[in-house]
């Protein structure tokens, strides 16, 4: 495995309610909390943020002018985790994975944003293979 592609970002947040509710707030109700003012293409013109809860689903912002994609759902295992292909220009082709695990009466939410620094096409292949192999490993654990 190539290590140059793994210098990703990892963030942890603890919330006071169970994974089911944390997952729902993060995805289906993303428009309730996402800071569109600073974290969108349209800024204050954004009227909605949509997270389509299906594999292949889109994550996008809505303005009066139309829709702008942010990501595509690659894997979805509610309420435990999802994996997105992140489509925002400067980080196009990177991956965002968020996991939700029970912790005491609440949950631990861990976000990882990976795939930076893959300017060499060989790195992009190996990062692709890391995803494929990671998926294979998670499937085989389930079996």
């Amino acid at each position, binding site marked *: 495995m190539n290590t140059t592609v793994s210098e990703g970002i990892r*963030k942890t*947040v603890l919330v006071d309610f169970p994974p089911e509710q*944390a997952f729902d*707030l993060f995805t289906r109700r993303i428009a309730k909390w996402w*800071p569109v003012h600073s*974290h969108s293409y349209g800024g204050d013109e954004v009227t909605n943020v949509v997270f389509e809860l299906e594999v292949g689903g889109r994550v996008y912002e809505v303005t009066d002018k139309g829709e702008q994609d942010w990501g595509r759902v690659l894997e979805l295992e509610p309420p435990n985790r999802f994996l997105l292909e992140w489509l925002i220009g*400067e980080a196009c082709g990177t991956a965002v994975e968020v996991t939700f695990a029970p912790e005491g009466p609440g949950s631990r939410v861990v976000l990882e944003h990976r795939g930076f620094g893959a*300017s060499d096409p060989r790195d992009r292949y190996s990062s692709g293979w890391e995803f494929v192999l990671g998926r294979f490993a998670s499937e085989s654990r389930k079996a």
Partner: protein
Amino acid sequence: MSANGVALDALGDPTRRQIFDALRRGPRSVGELAGGLPVSRPAVSQHLRVLKEAGLVVDRKDGTRRVYRVDPGGLSEIRDYFDSFWNEALDRFAEEARKEQE
């Protein structure tokens, strides 16, 4: 997304983002880039100049052509940008979660 630093300002233009995305897939000459985009060769050169000044791409002479590729240093700036991007986004998520809990 809102610009933070020169590199992200340079990527504020959709055509420049397309050029940068093409270069992330591998090194290209000006001619190759212009062939895949609905803009003229001089316009591509102008966009490349902005990307180069922002530290996002580097160029190298290869015979008579000039070949451009992504500068890994520019990517690390983008990584840093998303580091604070997620801090702010997750703060808002945690804040909303706290509100709902009350």
